[in-house]
């Protein structure tokens, strides 16, 4: 009994000590003049070193202005798992680099603050409003009710990648039309090299090629119908046409075994010249940097024009990416906004290109010389483009994406589903998903066809 009493006393002492420590920790922040900003960053292919460098520079600049600001910037590959519980308990960081988070759910729940006030403030390192520095379309992704809920720190675009050295050796040139693309694949196949590597374990990769082809075949009108989630949007003949082009490409030219390969496996096949082409986003270069052999000249071209298609081939399937948002329950949201405005600024964009190979979403933000040749080629592709378009359903209809879109796409690529059947399944699934009373469908501003030289 005596021993038990001793244990109880010891436990009480330990608890008191621990709570005391916590009290000291909490009061420490309040007692000092220092302003602490917590920034959470997804630690993916781009790492967090560049972000940390920006944080230190920000602290120095604030110090020069007489403010003591400490940016507590941390990164984690499993960011979303750490952020979700903090959002739920009302204690999120002041600024978050979104990754794998249901931002629309959070927006609908009023848990995200709009950026508009800070977007209208002067930019850091340039004249004019911050908002005006973004390339057209870059702020559109998370825009609802005339408010912008997240700002991108990078540009993403869908492209077809190749090895310029391999192309020179065989006398191949990047194709301008889909017929030329298929002819190129035939020529590649004739040499014994697989024409196309594919990230088959993630059939969703083909969705971006599909959507690019939808625009090439049916123009922005087809993209608008899909983004508006109109009934029959996918059964439209132009979309079925795009699906049949995609299926022909996969059936004839995918590397054997591609459907069982992960993104890294297939991309390794590409950088080792086992396959000559691969469709991927601009992150490919960064993702494969360590595995790319010397002499490999990674370059890209846009998804070729489809003969007879209604779409402007000078448009790119792309949008802003690496979005930052400020949670509504953040302790110091104004500091989160201020740091975002500093980070995504003309002053920091060149360094971002040099350090982590990211194209800035700001007009002329990334100087060409700051980039490696693969990204220079991506920049050329973007410079030659007349604008961006994007498709939003895969992000809004999560269940549809998992249960209908992706498995159906895999079946389409394998030839188990006809293009008509796949498109019908997409429409059916979308109609079913729309019955969900909790589904959030943000107001969509359709792309202006005439602005991009298209007609309906």
């Amino acid at each position: 009994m005596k021993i038990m009493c001793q244990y109880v006393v010891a436990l009480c002492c330990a608890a008191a000590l621990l709570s005391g420590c916590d009290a000291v920790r909490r009061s420490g922040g309040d007692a000092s003049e220092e302003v602490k900003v917590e920034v959470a960053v997804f630690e993916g292919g781009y790492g967090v070193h560049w972000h940390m460098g920006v944080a230190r520079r920000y602290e120095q600049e604030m110090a020069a202005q007489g403010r003591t600001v400490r940016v507590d910037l941390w990164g984690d590959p499993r960011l979303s798992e750490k952020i979700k519980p903090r959002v739920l308990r009302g204690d999120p960081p002041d600024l978050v680099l979104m990754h794998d988070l249901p931002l629309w759910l959070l927006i609908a729940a009023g848990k995200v603050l709009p950026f508009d006030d800070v977007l209208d403030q002067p930019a850091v390192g340039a004249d004019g409003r911050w908002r005006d520095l973004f390339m057209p379309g870059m702020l559109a992704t998370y825009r609802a009710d005339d408010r912008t809920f997240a700002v991108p720190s990078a540009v993403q675009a869908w492209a077809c990648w190749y090895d310029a050295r391999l192309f020179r050796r065989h006398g191949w040139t990047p194709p301008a039309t889909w017929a030329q693309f298929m002819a190129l694949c035939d020529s590649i196949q004739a040499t014994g090299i697989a024409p196309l590597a594919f990230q088959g374990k993630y059939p969703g990769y083909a969705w971006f090629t599909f959507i690019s082809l939808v625009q090439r075949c049916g123009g922005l009108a087809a993209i608008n119908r899909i983004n508006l989630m109109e009934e029959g949007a996918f059964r439209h003949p132009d979309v079925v046409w795009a699906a049949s082009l995609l299926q022909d490409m996969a059936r004839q030219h995918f590397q054997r075994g591609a459907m069982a390969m992960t993104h890294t496996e297939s991309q390794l096949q590409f950088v080792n010249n086992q396959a000559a082409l691969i469709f991927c986003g601009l992150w490919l270069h960064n993702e494969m940097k360590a595995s790319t052999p010397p002499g490999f000249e990674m370059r890209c071209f846009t998804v070729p024009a489809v003969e007879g298609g209604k779409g402007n081939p000078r448009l790119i399937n792309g949008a802003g990416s690496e979005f930052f948002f400020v949670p509504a329950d953040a302790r110091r949201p104004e500091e989160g906004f201020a740091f975002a405005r500093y980070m995504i600024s003309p002053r920091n964009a060149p360094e971002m290109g040099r350090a982590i190979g990211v194209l800035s979403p700001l007009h002329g933000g990334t100087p060409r010389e700051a980039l490696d040749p693969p990204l220079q080629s991506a920049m050329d592709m973007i410079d030659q483009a007349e604008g961006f378009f994007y498709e939003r359903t895969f992000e809004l209809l999560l269940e549809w994406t998992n249960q209908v879109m992706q498995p159906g796409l895999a079946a389409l690529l394998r030839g188990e589903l006809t293009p008509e059947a796949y498109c019908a399944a997409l429409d059916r699934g979308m109609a079913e998903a729309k019955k969900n009373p909790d589904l959030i469908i943000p107001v969509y501003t359709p792309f202006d066809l005439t602005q991009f030289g298209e007609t309906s």
Partner: protein
Amino acid sequence: MNRDYGRSIFIAVFLAPALVLFTAFVALPGVRALLYSLQRWDGLTEARWVGLDNFARLFREGDLFLIALGHNLFLLAVAGSLILVLALAFAAMLHRRIRGAGLFRVAFFFPNVIAAVAVALLWILLYSATDFGVINAALGAFQRMCHSFGWDWPRVPLPFPFLDSRYLLYSLIPMMVWSAVGFYMVLFLAAMEGIPEEYYEAAKIDGATPLQQFRHITLPLIREVFTVGVVFLVITSLKFFDPIWVMENQRPTRDSHVLTTLLYQKVFTEYNVGYGSAVAVMLFLLVFCATLISLKLSRAERVEY
């Protein structure tokens, strides 16, 4: 009286930490999951009561729940049977003191000590459709050898996509057998070691063959342990998660979902906490029923010689 009271306190003090932990981390979350299963909730905003809607959805035609359950049962039936048969066979051989029994015992048990994720990664490399894939390389060499003899066999285009979602469940079977058979073998072997040698000697004198000895002595006398093995297998098959999650790169499909991957995807990818919790409740009920049935069977009359 005073002494009894002190003893009760003593017992309570020792039980309390376990009870507190069990209540906090098992019982309460279990009750919460049951409540979530009656709600429509995305995990971030206000929840709404929907009664048994989530459960009704599970049994709707074409719903993934029944498909995933079917996959669990397939793995249990095919891989589970193979594991039991092979484990029994290996245990019986080791029990008969074949040469190198100790080595075999370690070799068979070894995969069991490797983490499930590591096992999955290992088999991903074995099955890979790239140049790293040992199995595809071996098949390729075999195919070339057959061709050199003029045989057009095996008639599959290589590399074979073992890790394609369509074939994944089949590809899992060798992996499951390889990684689990050692555990069950050791379990059965321990039971066999407990059978008195005299029974076998008497049977030999009566002219019983080794197969007859196995059927009429070994099997009846290890029945209780065998039942425990079956219970383990049923529970393991229903809770099967890691290898599929790893081999499907966190994106299982209709072809490869099992109950646990479906649960995870619904809750953490699609933010459908209500539906995911309903799957969890059904999973609990299935494991509970399977355990009850197995326990009932194991309580059947004990064999004595």
